[in-house]
């Protein structure tokens, strides 16, 4: 029989909060983590603002030993380790050095790239004919599974230890993959999450594609404007989100706190057919993904209280809303509440789905809807579809039962997950 799967631990390293408590406070207050980035200005980026987690050396030292920090130059792995360990300890699990690994616990921790700064550093050395000077630290920091490999060792995981990668759906996909593993009885606990490197070498390609805003370099906190009429492209972000998934049976047995239950979800692709391309979504696939997720979770559209959208602050925001209205067959004042965390943290790329899911789980657990900022001038194409009051601009207290979270990504890929408040039956 399928196992029920619950979330028992959360960890996050985000531009507006590098631990769960400060992140929760920031999202409730709509505090922006977007700052002007002098390095981007110096490198002549069009978009010179970004969301970067602000980590102090003393904080980092709690997670990595001096030896591990020697020649360490991978922000993505760093964020992933901190978020992952925080989620593990938040779930009440230990970091003891046991002789045997925990055979029933694993991780699916996604990434888009790994250690891009380390990679750059190595390429320069190599071209200067100094291959020997690369030392032993390049491979583990630049292999895309570096983050899951580090976490596997830190936590002593003996089940599947892997990294998934699927552009901007990576984080949501990691949770669904980990969920499936527990549901089918192949693991008892899985650390799910994803991370994304910081800095110009990861963001430059997007800047060159002209998908980031260049209009807000002097007003960074106003730059990320999902659903706004003046949305001008996304603001690049970075960080990591992590969730401990566990069978309900195991969580109950050990008396763990339960944040929420995962009811199910779906992952699909538009195959870059129809309206779909490498970078544009096939709307039929998006709607199908949302509908399949509801069917998989045995949830009806009417039961959904809140949507945590992908909503990056590009011209595609209204298309996303249109797809939601079509998939749910709900519009106007009948539409659920909807919000986008990207207004305060930017688009954290491969980390987006997991950080946004951490926010969604906090909303369910604590009974609130975080505010959307920078959309005081809502896009009229959106307000034609849904009521203005469904897009909260200040925090709302609400006893949410069911929340839908979706992520969409390059390659025409989609993921949708349905989360339910856990009532401690």
């Amino acid at each position, binding site marked *: 029989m399928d196992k029920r799967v619950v979330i028992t631990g959360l960890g996050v390293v985000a531009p507006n909060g590098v631990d769960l408590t400060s992140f929760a406070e920031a999202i409730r207050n709509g505090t922006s983590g977007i700052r002007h980035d002098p390095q981007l200005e110096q490198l002549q980026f069009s978009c010179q603002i970004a969301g970067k987690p602000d980590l102090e050396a003393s904080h980092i030292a709690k997670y990595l030993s001096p030896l591990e920090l020697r020649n360490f130059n991978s922000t993505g792995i760093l964020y992933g380790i901190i978020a992952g360990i925080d989620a593990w300890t938040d779930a009440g699990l230990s970091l003891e050095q046991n002789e045997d690994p925990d055979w029933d616990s694993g991780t699916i921790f996604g990434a888009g790239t790994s250690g891009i700064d380390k990679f750059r550093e190595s390429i320069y050395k190599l071209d200067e004919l100094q291959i*020997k*000077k690369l*030392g*032993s630290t390049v491979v583990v920091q630049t292999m895309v599974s570096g983050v899951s490999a580090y976490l596997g060792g830190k936590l002593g995981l003996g089940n599947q230890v892997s990294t998934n990668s699927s552009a901007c759906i990576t984080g949501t996909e990691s949770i669904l993959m980990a969920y499936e593993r527990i549901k089918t009885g192949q693991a008892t606990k899985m650390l799910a999450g994803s991370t994304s490197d910081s800095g110009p070498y990861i963001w430059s390609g997007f800047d060159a594609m002209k998908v980031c805003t260049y209009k807000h370099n002097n007003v960074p906190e106003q730059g990320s404007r999902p659903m706004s009429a003046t949305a001008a492209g996304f603001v690049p972000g970075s960080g990591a989100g992590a969730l401990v998934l566990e069978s309900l049976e195991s969580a109950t047995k050990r008396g763990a706190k339960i944040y929420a239950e995962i009811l199910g979800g779906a992952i699909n692709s538009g195959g870059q057919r129809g309206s779909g391309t490498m970078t544009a979504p096939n709307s039929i696939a998006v709607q199908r993904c949302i509908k399949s997720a509801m069917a998989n979770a045995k949830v009806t559209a009417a039961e959904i209280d809140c949507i945590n959208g992908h909503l990056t602050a590009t011209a595609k925001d209204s298309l996303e809303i249109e797809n939601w209205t079509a998939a749910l067959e709900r519009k106007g004042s009948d539409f659920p509440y909807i919000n986008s965390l990207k207004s305060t943290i930017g688009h954290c790329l491969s980390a987006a789905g997991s950080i946004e899911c951490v926010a969604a789980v906090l909303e369910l657990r604590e009974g609130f809807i975080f505010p959307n900022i920078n959309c005081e001038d809502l896009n009229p194409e959106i307000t034609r579809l849904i009521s203005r009051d469904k897009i909260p601009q200040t925090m709302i207290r609400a006893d949410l039962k069911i929340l839908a979270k979706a992520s969409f990504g390059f390659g025409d890929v989609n993921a949708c997950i349905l989360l339910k408040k856990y009532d401690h039956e």
Partner: protein
Amino acid sequence: MNKEVLTEKLKAIISTYAQDPAALENMTESTDFITDLKINSANLVDVVLDLEEAFDIVIDNQSMERMLTVGTALEIIEIKLSEK
């Protein structure tokens, strides 16, 4: 450079990588980097890099392969220093 100074310099370098502080404290020429000091085998190349930098020498692949104990490391450093 006399052997005592050389040993102290070596000890300082490997202290970064040694996971067994007691073995490091009591190290002798027969102390093995991996089995006694519990240095992760992948880190041996980093030890070599640090030695090259500290002593301004170049340690070739063949010498590196042999360099598994405190004694062989000292011997190789001495040879490389004398060739300078």
